[in-house]
């Protein structure tokens, strides 16, 4: 599938900020599952961008602003061709060994309830893959998808106790449960093409990958009770949400801020002319006044 993605984040500050440093994890990488045809990050002021890799191998863009601005819009956009490989993720290049992804974090600290839930589901099934499928399915069944009940800081244990949440909560619970059973699991941020034709979304999507010996990383979307297929574009992975936040930053000045996110994922049928962006160390963003 050929997908066109546009992820824009608009900040409004009550007073001009004098300086901002942000880390962006907005750029997908090519793998056997997806080919990034073109990708660019635009900022609507005189900002400077530096590209690097973080410790997980994710594309990381450092953004530096040091002129007074009261609004800041960051748009990441491009085209990605995806391939349905039944959830098996491969060809990502340099990666940390799976053993790292057994580590608990503040957001994925196991509690008794998740431990019991994971044990109850996985006890009867012999293969890791079957266990993970069962876990993903059971989670989709047990939890109610509901926005506004959880926040970015909601832990897996709290979301599980509440019985409701968003894709981030599903992913955290799935990861926590898998790790509790000794299966390395990681959090994935990215985009989902909605076959139901839903319009622009206020956030990207999130799911999880778990390590299956002999198969490698397998992507599960517990919020939808399915494996990731060609409707999914993977952007970054880490131990939990905090490792892959699309934008984290600090600033001086600016008063209080308001943030608005809009994500559009559309299917492109006809081949369009696209301009490739240079992949050097840095590039100047366009000033749009």
């Amino acid at each position, binding site marked *: 599938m050929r997908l066109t993605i546009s992820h824009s984040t608009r900040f409004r500050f009550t007073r001009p900020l004098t300086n901002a440093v942000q880390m962006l994890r907005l750029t997908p990488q090519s793998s056997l599952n997806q080919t990034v045809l073109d990708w660019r990050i635009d900022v609507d002021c005189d900002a400077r961008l530096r590209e690097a890799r973080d*410790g997980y191998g994710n594309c*990381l863009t450092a953004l530096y602003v040091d002129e007074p601005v009261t609004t800041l819009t960051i748009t990441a956009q491009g085209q990605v061709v995806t391939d349905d490989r039944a959830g098996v993720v491969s060809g990502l290049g340099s990666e940390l*060994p799976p*053993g*790292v992804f057994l580590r608990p974090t503040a957001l994925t600290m196991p509690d008794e309830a998740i431990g019991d839930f994971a044990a109850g589901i996985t006890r009867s099934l012999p293969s890791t893959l079957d266990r993970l499928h069962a876990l993903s399915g059971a989670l989709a069944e047990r939890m109610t998808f509901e926005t506004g009940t959880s926040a970015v800081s909601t832990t897996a244990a709290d979301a599980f106790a509440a019985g409701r949440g968003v894709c981030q909560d599903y992913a955290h619970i799935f990861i926590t449960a898998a790790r509790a059973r000794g299966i390395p699991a990681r959090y994935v941020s990215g985009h989902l093409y909605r076959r139901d034709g839903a319009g622009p979304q206020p956030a990207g999507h999130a799911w999880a990958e778990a390590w299956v010996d002999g198969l490698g990383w397998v992507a599960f979307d517990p919020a939808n009770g399915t494996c990731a297929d060609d409707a999914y574009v993977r952007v970054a992975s880490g131990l939990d949400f905090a490792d892959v936040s699309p934008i984290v*930053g600090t600033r001086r000045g600016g008063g209080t801020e308001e943030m608005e996110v809009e994500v559009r994922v559309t299917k492109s049928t006809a081949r369009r002319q696209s301009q490739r962006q240079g992949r050097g160390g840095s590039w100047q963003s366009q000033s749009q006044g």
Partner: protein
Amino acid sequence: MAARKAFDELWGQGSGETPRPGFEQLGEWLKNTPVTELARRQAMAEAAFRSLGITFSVYGDEQAGERIIPFDIVPRMFTAAEWDKLSLGLEQRVRALNAFVADVYGPRHILKDKVVPEDVILGNPQFCIPANAIVPPHGIYTHICGIDIVRTGADDFFVLEDNARTPSGVSYMLENREAMLRLCPELFAQLAVQPIDTYPDLLRDMLYSVAPRGSQEPTCVLLTPGHYNSAFYEHSFLADSMGIELVEGRDLEVADDIVYMRTIEGRVRVDVIYRRIDDAFLDPLVFNPDSGLGVPGLMSAYRAGNVTIVNAPGTGIADDKAVYSFMPEIVRYYMGTDALLPNVETFRCREPQALRYTLENLEKLVVKLVDGSGGYGMLVGPTASRQEIDDFRTALMAEPQRYIAQPTLALSTVPTLAEKGITPRHVDFRPFILSGADRVTIVPGGLTRVALAEGSLVVNSSQGGGTKDSLIIAAPELQPTEEQHALPYSR
């Protein structure tokens, strides 16, 4: 607790009449200087430390405020031969530690070869993911290492701990020597003591040497968490003696992956940061987001190779106590030979057999949290109460992987001035090893920590320990001639 008599650094296993070979002059000095005179000098030294503001604070002890670390006037000494042996072992160990950290954040051969189990590293909170796949300028990670050494006999030195993150205490080494030179000049007239006052120069040379390639005149700064930190005195002392700026996070900023220091004359590019803050506070965009101690964007500048951070982020994996237990294997793996300085025998409670042994012998062992430091979270079996032992038993059974256990060593003693006069007290020793771009340097000295309470084996300053000067005697060919020796010496 005094089951068997410990080896004494001055008297050996002897009765306190005949010093060990090489220690005759020190023995004479101690016998000939009245205790009242020693006490007078010690009080003068402590008054000087207090007026200089050489203090430290004890975490969790709100009432105590700032204290001086007790200083003991009776020095400990190493012969040239002892020091040579130690130096070789220390250099070997530090080279292995550095190779290990480089490997762990790079190709991870040691894990693939199963010399160290994967989960000891990958599951370890000290394995710093943001440091993964970064090669620091010149490939050096553990620029400053403070390796704690204990001794149980004439030839028996053991490494107790590798402090490879931000070892402290070097200012006490220097200040203790200053005090001794002033208060006991006759001792230095008799003994050919190697100087240690070059340490700040060596440290500065090392910092310059590891600047990112291409920096002509590197700018080095010392990054401190501020004056509330227990080691703030040391931070300001070291910055001052090296002639570099002492900065806090807010004095630095990152733009376009380059670190700058804000000064009244504008921004100055920074090449090397000797940081005395932990990894978790270095950069709020990568580590603890609530911390205001660090510099937003610092890790990006580091990742881009534009700044050297001393010691490199992630070196904590080298001094983790679970990793410590593998140091003999680690030294052999990277150096191709056995460790010249052995470890203290260590039981890894993560292993069922070691756990069983530990649980059965708690009253004989020292049990430590693998991620503990400063003498916190440890059990000293022989001096612990029934209740303390029971509490540790429960904790051990719940989370055995968090603990290691070691036999209670008969640490060597050094004559020490106590209320009742000169009496033996247990000591350890922390030399400071510097790894620069092209060489490893060890200043001939270190910090001797002494357990001031009778029989106590806990030397940490946070647990009431004190310090002593550590004299390294020059090799015979470096010793002054008779003429030079004939300095006025009278009391």
